[in-house]
């Protein structure tokens, strides 16, 4: 019987329950920590149950299944990616706030146990990078990029759904680690030998390995999908040099994913071999060494941070141009700069381990390569400024984020340049100065970028604008909260405070950690504002509706379709004759033309492969974490069967008839004809239905 149980449950036992230790040894400290973790776990469980209950109550299972989960429409997949990002974000933020709260009372103690603090920074980092930032930007690119290049979908829609499935499975795995604990305490970089079995024997590191592996595979497939789509599915006439800058950044991001993910795959796979099969890559006892792990991890890690930032750069390029009422300054320069950043990002990874002991010349070479990235980045910044120059700048919400970004990002860039100097890095490496640097890039850079894009494209995706008042509140409290929360960390780092410290003994740190804690509260308020913004907007969606689809007087193709766009995006694939095609159409009065004839449209049919693989890959990795080998083998075979089975399917598309296309399109065109065109002065008013007055009428002046 017990033998059977062991087989069934692997190494899973009572210890895994978050409240177990609290029950065994009920000290105050254990009770506090047990309660926090149990609370989190119950939130996961109750949240899940509530969701199931709600869906059942409203009878939405069928809709969920056939309209969403099995859908291979890039727009829906994009939205689902963002939903995953949002759910994971909620957890990572709470952890961040806990860490800041702990450190603001961390003088000589605090309330969090060291293990929980370790799990917090590890899950926070892992989630933010792999399950918040990556899905978020993948979602945005998924939604926008095909619209901008005039395509109906990605090249491989089913693979797109599989990418989503793997990310979702990884996210669920991380969430499950809250209920069946523990998670790794090795940080998001998971350096061995600390993460090897002798030092981290539990399931924690295995959760980390498999969650990250799922995310990596997902991103590799996403990268391939994006790159092929951009190369092969552009509308006729859309040369590479006519693509909107966001598509350029999508392309470079895709290439970084394709080539940047493999080192991580290798690093985590070798670590897994060490842990599961007693290989000796990173343990020094039998001829291994951890230096190669560090090397491999950062050969991924550095391109990764540019994966995170480049799409944000793309978003900002669109936003600066749109809200300055002006074409982007220096398109070619921006393209060249983007490509240089992407290429250079493969040549600098050593700057994450200047202090390992290699030759000064190696350090110097990589240090200089790192600083070189400052050049194209600076050029981009100046190009954006020159875009505003002689423009008509409208301080909308996306623009507030953009301005905040540009001013804060240069400070983060400056500290990056500081870190790039090996002899200085010897002082600030592994301190909160570094933490401040990368949050300075990630929050005003990647996060503001995504938030700006969210405010900018939300009307496109859902057909109504977001509420302004809460939007501004969110944006400004983001900026202020960020400054308060992270600038003190620069000071703390300069004062020698190491990162990943649960508590400290220097009174000198306290004022700074308290300010940072307050900043985290402001950021929390920003998050609250975002939620309010969304809630209010949904309630007033009729008032804010912009069905015509061009609320900001945009430049690129996505604004030329209805909001939300039809499944097939374009009733007729547009013919592109210039950069900023929609702008040109509007300028020459050619926008909203009636196509001469409509054709049948062949769209990819729904597929259950994605959801099936999501379940299978979750079960498989869960089995791996807890040593439930039957589950691993069983789900592995199921996955294989699903893939093979799918390869026999031949009817993978369905036809949307020309009649239906005509009906939808003509009724939208009628709506366009009835709508009132507005100038930019009324942009934020409820009269904005998404139809821009033509420039002849002084639309922007």
């Amino acid at each position, binding site marked *: 019987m017990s033998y059977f149980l062991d087989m069934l449950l692997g190494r899973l036992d009572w210890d895994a329950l978050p409240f177990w230790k609290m029950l065994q040894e009920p000290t105050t400290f254990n009770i506090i920590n047990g309660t926090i973790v149990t609370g989190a776990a119950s939130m996961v469980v109750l949240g899940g149950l509530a969701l199931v209950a709600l869906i059942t109550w409203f009878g939405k299972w069928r809709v969920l299944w056939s309209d969403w989960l099995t859908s291979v429409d890039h727009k829906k997949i994009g939205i689902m990616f963002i939903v995953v990002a949002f759910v994971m974000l909620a957890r990572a933020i709470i952890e961040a706030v806990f860490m800041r709260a702990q450190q603001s009372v961390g003088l000589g103690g605090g309330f969090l146990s060291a293990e929980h603090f370790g799990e917090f920074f590890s899950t926070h980092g892992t989630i933010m990078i792999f399950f918040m930032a990556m899905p978020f930007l993948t979602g945005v690119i998924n939604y926008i990029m095909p619209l901008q290049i005039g395509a109906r979908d990605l090249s491989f829609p089913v693979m797109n759904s599989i990418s989503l499935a793997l990310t979702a499975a990884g996210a669920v795995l991380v969430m499950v680690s809250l209920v069946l604990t523990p998670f790794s305490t090795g940080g998001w970089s998971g350096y061995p030998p600390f993460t090897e079995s002798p030092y981290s024997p539990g399931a924690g590191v295995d959760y980390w390995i498999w969650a990250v592996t799922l995310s990596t595979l997902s991103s590799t497939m996403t990268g391939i999908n994006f790159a092929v789509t951009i190369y092969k599915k552009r509308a006729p006439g859309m040369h590479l040099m006519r693509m909107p800058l966001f598509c350029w950044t999508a392309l470079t991001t895709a290439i970084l994913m394709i080539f940047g993910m493999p080192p991580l795959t*290798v690093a985590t796979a070798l670590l897994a071999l060490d842990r599961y099969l007693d290989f000796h*890559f990173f343990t020094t006892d*039998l001829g291994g060494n951890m230096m190669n792990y560090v090397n491999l991890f950062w050969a991924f890690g550095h391109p990764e941070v540019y994966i995170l930032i480049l799409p944000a750069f793309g978003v900002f390029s669109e936003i600066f141009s749109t809200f300055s009422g002006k074409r982007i300054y220096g398109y070619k320069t921006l393209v060249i700069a983007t490509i240089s950043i992407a290429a250079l990002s493969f040549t600098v990874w050593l700057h994450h381990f200047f202090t390992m002991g290699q030759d000064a010349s190696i350090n110097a070479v990589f240090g200089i390569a790192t600083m070189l990235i400052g050049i194209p980045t600076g050029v981009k910044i100046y190009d954006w400024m020159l875009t505003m120059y002689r423009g008509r700048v409208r301080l909308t919400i996306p623009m507030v984020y953009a301005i905040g970004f540009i001013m804060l990002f240069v400070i983060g860039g400056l500290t990056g340049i500081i870190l790039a100097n090996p002899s200085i890095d010897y002082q600030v490496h592994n301190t909160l100065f570094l933490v401040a640097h990368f949050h300075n890039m990630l929050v005003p850079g990647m996060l503001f970028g995504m938030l700006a894009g969210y405010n900018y494209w939300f009307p496109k995706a859902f057909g109504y604008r977001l509420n302004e008042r809460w939007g501004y509140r969110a944006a400004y409290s983001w900026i202020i909260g960020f400054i308060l929360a992270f600038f003190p960390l620069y000071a703390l780092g300069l004062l020698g405070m190491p990162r990943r410290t649960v508590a400290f003994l220097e009174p000198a740190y306290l004022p700074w950690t308290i300010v940072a804690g307050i900043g985290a509260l402001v950021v929390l308020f920003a998050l609250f504002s975002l939620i309010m913004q969304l809630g209010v907007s949904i309630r007033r969606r009729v008032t804010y509706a912009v069905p015509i689809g061009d609320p900001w007087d945009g430049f690129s193709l996505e604004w030329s379709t209805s909001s939300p766009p039809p499944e097939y995006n374009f009733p007729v694939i547009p013919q592109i004759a210039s950069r900023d095609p929609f702008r040109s159409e509007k300028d020459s009065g050619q926008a909203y033309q009636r196509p001469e004839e409509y054709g049948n449209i062949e769209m990819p049919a729904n597929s259950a492969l994605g959801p099936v693989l999501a379940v299978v890959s979750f079960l498989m990795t869960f089995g791996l974490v807890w040593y439930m080998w039957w589950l691993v083998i069983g789900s592995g075979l199921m996955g294989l069967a699903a893939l*093979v089975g799918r390869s026999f399917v031949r009817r993978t598309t369905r036809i949307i008839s020309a009649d239906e296309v005509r009906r939808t399109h003509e009724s939208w065109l009628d709506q366009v004809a009835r709508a009132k065109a507005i100038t930019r002065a009324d942009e934020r008013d409820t009269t904005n239905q998404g139809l821009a007055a033509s420039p002849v009428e002084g639309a922007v002046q």
Partner: protein
Amino acid sequence: MTPTTNRHPGINLGDMHEEASDACESLVFGFWVFMMSDLIIFALLFATYVVMLGGTAGGPGPHELYEMKSAFLETMLLLASSFTFGMASLALKYDRTKGQLLGWLVITLLLGLAFIGLELRDFHLMASKDGVPSRSGFLSAFYALVSLHGLHVTGACLWMLVLFGQMAVHGLDTGVKTGLLRLGILWHFLDIVWIGIFSVVYLGGLV
């Protein structure tokens, strides 16, 4: 399609197979991109292998473990299979019957299986000389690299079986053709990786 430009790497089906040829442009390109990503994985394992050469930890090293003869045989098998797969591709492109195609594919499959068999025999022999992955960092790196290649070959063989199944159900339709083209790319690619393995691992170690 003008005969002077290739739409994608690998053999191009050309206008005799219009539908498949069109479908291939994205499919094969995508697969090729994936191969390049996979190539980075192999490259990093090669680098890892080289930097772990010194990590024998007193255990057996290349000279004790590697056998020139079987490495040579394996090389010949893979190389021949690349050629026979080429013949299969030509049969697919120019002959409208399945006979030749199937013949060449089956030969390729047998060569592939023979390769795997031989490799397993190698591993077995090595294990009997204490050459197991848990023995040392060096051996860990060896097994990670070489068996990843072996796993790829195994996967390719399985894929071929699946394609046989599809051929039985659907005949030689576009799906099968594009599948074969991609499989061909994988097959040649694995041969290229093997060049690296026999040069860096076996010959380099036996020098």
